[in-house]
């Protein structure tokens, strides 16, 4: 009788831990994936689409749209992977993926991100390309910091790192591409790997 109660207690502990921490999976493996997509997209752009030193990248040219298309593709793939991996884990633990917390997380993430996106498009429209990478990093960082209130804390530090990188990037015009690769590629992979190791440690508790 007593044993049964203890067993129920342990079941309850496991259930609470799983339900409250579903975003751990969003942070780990999907972070590594997002970083890889960014680097592949970046390298592809660099070798095939980047304007030669004497060329100018014109707003509205085919090349311009191809670069935008790749950037969007990287974004969509990253988000799709994150949603796929998270919902798979949620299903395994019988947790709802859409609750008030998820909703708040998404809204808080999107406010700075969409603001930044529109701002960058307006700037591109008026031929201001120079700060694109810097602005992307800064607004993405702000979005992460803003969303971190609704998920585990580490995402805040990734956000702060992206903001700092974006500011440094603004100080070195002409190297935007490389800063973009570090911020969206390398940082995601490093962050994803750290989270992955921590998840493994946490799952030791669960089982």
């Amino acid at each position, binding site marked *: 009788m007593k*044993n049964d109660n*203890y*067993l129920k*207690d*342990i079941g*309850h*502990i*496991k259930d*609470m*831990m799983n*339900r*409250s*921490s579903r975003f*751990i999976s969003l942070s780990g493996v999907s972070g590594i994936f997002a970083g890889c997509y960014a680097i592949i997209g970046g390298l592809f752009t660099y070798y095939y689409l980047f304007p030669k030193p004497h060329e100018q990248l014109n707003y509205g040219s085919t090349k311009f749209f191809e670069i935008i298309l790749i950037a969007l593709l990287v974004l969509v793939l990253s988000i799709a992977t994150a949603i796929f991996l998270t919902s798979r884990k949620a299903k395994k633990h019988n947790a709802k993926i859409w*609750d*008030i*917390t998820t909703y708040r997380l998404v809204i808080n993430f999107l406010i700075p991100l969409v603001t930044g996106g529109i701002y960058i498009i307006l700037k591109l429209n008026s031929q201001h390309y120079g700060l694109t990478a810097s602005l992307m990093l800064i607004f993405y960082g702000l979005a992460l910091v803003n969303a971190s209130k609704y998920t*585990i*804390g580490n995402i805040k530090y990734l956000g702060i790192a992206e903001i700092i990188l974006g500011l440094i990037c603004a100080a070195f015009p002409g190297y935007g591409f490389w800063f973009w690769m570090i911020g969206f590629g390398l940082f995601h992979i490093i962050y994803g790997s750290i989270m992955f190791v921590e998840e493994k440690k*946490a799952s030791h*508790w669960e089982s």
Partner: protein
Amino acid sequence: MGIIDNINKLFDHRVRLGIMSVLAVNEAADFNRLKELLNVTDGNLASHLKALEKAEYISVAKTFIGRKPHTNYKATKIGKLEFKKHIEALEKLIN
């Protein structure tokens, strides 16, 4: 005797156990998040949080978001340690 010593009386309740479970894997959680996860009433949750706070197993940070009070809870080092001991004791009892 040794095993029973580690069973913590304070964790001998579903809600308190739930609070500690959430705070063991999350850096922090606010009142509404805990309420949503544990599916309990305001008063019930508040009294259990108070008990854990008194034992210094959790720390409380009150801030204002606009005009709304916002209360954030974190597990303290002692709290995490005691919780871990409690789980280990539970596991030993079952095996």
